């Protein structure tokens, strides 16, 4: 069966061990997590995870259902086919000399990236964007010699007013309903 790259986003209780509970379910099904990003959300005690995995649709859906059963997972959805903004951040430490420095700075400018640290023989570049943009910049910088790279992995939000991860207020008991599809914006801003 054909495999595709899936973007799963989850709201989880901010408790010790929750990352282990989520990642171990992928391990059980022999999935390799490509990236996982965790951070706080607009709600106290809740964290948001963005998980990128590659697999066939049925298998990913089975893991998603199993993850939804984890008590600490409040909600998890697959937003692969949703209209969304996805970003990652990378820090790249690249070798530089007096002769290459300005060329590097030019490239960084074109990518609307930033130089965040300078030393006599290196520059640190901070770049935000989708994987393609980060990848292209890294490829270009590779020619100058890369010392170190740190990448955050992807985070993503669906476009529009209402997102699939908005949870009902605690204690409010109502029949779960499908959130409306996020409306397409008239003109999508350029991704990078």
């Amino acid at each position: 069966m054909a495999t595709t790259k899936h973007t799963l986003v989850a709201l989880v209780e901010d408790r010790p061990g929750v990352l282990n509970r989520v990642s171990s379910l992928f391990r059980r099904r022999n999935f390799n997590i490509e990236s996982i990003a965790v951070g706080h959300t607009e709600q106290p005690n809740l964290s948001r995870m963005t998980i990128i995995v590659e697999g066939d649709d049925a298998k990913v859906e089975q893991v998603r259902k199993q993850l939804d059963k984890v008590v600490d997972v409040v909600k998890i959805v697959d937003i692969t086919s949703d209209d969304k903004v996805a970003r990652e951040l990378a820090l790249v430490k690249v070798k530089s000399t007096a002769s290459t420095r300005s060329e590097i700075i030019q490239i960084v400018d074109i990518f609307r990236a930033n130089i965040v640290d300078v030393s006599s023989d290196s520059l640190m570049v901070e770049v935000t964007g989708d994987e393609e943009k980060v990848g292209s910049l890294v490829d270009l910088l590779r020619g100058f010699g890369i010392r170190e790279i740190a990448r955050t992995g992807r985070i993503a939000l669906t476009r529009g007013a209402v997102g699939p991860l908005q949870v009902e207020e605690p204690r409010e008991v109502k029949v779960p309903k499908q959130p409306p599809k996020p409306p397409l914006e008239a003109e999508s801003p350029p991704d990078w």
Partner: protein
Amino acid sequence: MKKTGAQILCESLCREGVEVIFGFPGGAVLPLYDTLPQYPKIRHILVRHEQGAAHAADGYARATGKAGVCLATSGPGATNLVTGIANACLDSSPVVAITGQVARSFIGKDAFQEIDITGITLPITKHNYLVLDAKELAKVVKEAFYIAQTGRPGPVLIDIPRDVFQQEAEFVYPDKVNLPGYKPTLFGHPTQIKRAAEMINAAERPVIIAGRGVIISKAFAELRELAEKAQIPVITTLLGIGCFPETHVLSFGWLGMHGMAYANRAVHNADVIVAIGMRFDDRATGVVSSFAPQARIVHIDIDPAEIGKNVRVDVPIVGDVKNVLEALNQQIVPREHLDWFNQVDKWRDEHPALLIRESEALLPQYVIRQIYEVTQGDAIVVTGVGQNQMWSAQFFFYDKPNSLISSGGLGTMGFELPGAIGAKVGRPDETVWCVAGDGGFQMTIQELATIAQENIAVKIAIINNGCLGMVRQWQQLFYERRYVHTLLSGPDFIKIAEAYRIPALRVTDKKLVVSAIEKAMDHEGPFLIDFVVEPEENVFPIVPPGAALVQAIEMPKPEKVKP
């Protein structure tokens, strides 16, 4: 009022209606054991190995529908629970396991008897907790029992450091839980129920496959109403046995690897399958690619992750079986399926699965049938795993709701004896028969001491064939009779029983079976019978691994398999 963590735990257990704990003491739980006598309402049963505690709690839970509680100390005490917890997890049994942990300041230092039991049990519990503050304890216990007993039930583990048992905190028992990430769907979607009703009403060759979910949901009457109203043959899974009276005219046995040939044929030829509270386990479906090729499937289950996991489903209904069937039954049109019944009956005549062959020898099937005859079916049967389990499922007819207790998903040899202890403690007015193999019985044989000390009136039938029968059968059928490490030279079970002060009898003669069973029944306390049976008897039918349900090997005619 301030109480210690140990007191808070006991108070909370009382609030949850816990009457009995199966446990084994040790260093980390000493403060709790020291507190237990203050709570005489909680009966503590001392097992001889923690695995026995977990299985007994599981047996108790299955027999009563209430959470069973087991208790162990840190380290080896906790790891000894693991098999029992996994067993409860795979068969959706509500077990609350409480483990001691080393004191908080020692956690992470590889202290004496320290083990990360929440980490170890992560994949085999529905949820687990490490409680680092006595203030949290009441809330955790409340949540644990709620999670274990609602939705699809399952085990929950609570790990408590020794000094948290001693820490003082205010005791306030919460009256409800707030778990945003845990909200089981209880009622089926009306649209799907309507679609299911339409499909059932239009079916020509329908079958119901009913699983343990019917028993857990106590939907016995609702299942019967559906079957009788729509005139649908009822086939159960192994763990579904006891959800529908087996002597009912609509009952057509159970399906799967050792299921009745006619049940498997009916499933294979059905045009509509109504799967209720079951999960299409591979032992039930045979090779899944040729499972029920003509059928459209309605699948009712409370666990959304089970739907579409193993087989494609046409109408998924997530909800509690009882609620869903109540709603569904209202839309079912009474009708008959005479041709279909005639067909299934014909298969039953052509493939009589449950005959006991003529023989002077003592046959295991005969023993099980006589237990049925003597008890008149009025008993709870707790089995081991293997041949004894399959014969117990085949040759005893389960009319009473929830009367067969068996390890299905994990297939845990050694479950039988402690499982029977739990069942008898949970339902003391019932006759409980523990049917064991001589192999599995030796895995938890030490619990005879628990039975003797607590005078638990379990009747034990050892189906003693001197080998690991099911594995030997596979070696015979699929490994050209190379019996590698499956022949047992067992102990003298009568002497063992006597050593534990449990009366026992050995039966080697067919003619003495009934009188031995009657003697066991007449005796007030526990009783053990060692049935020394034909060693090379096989379980038939058997669907070979990797084959379709209809490709079962049936009992060779007219005599037994070549010697």
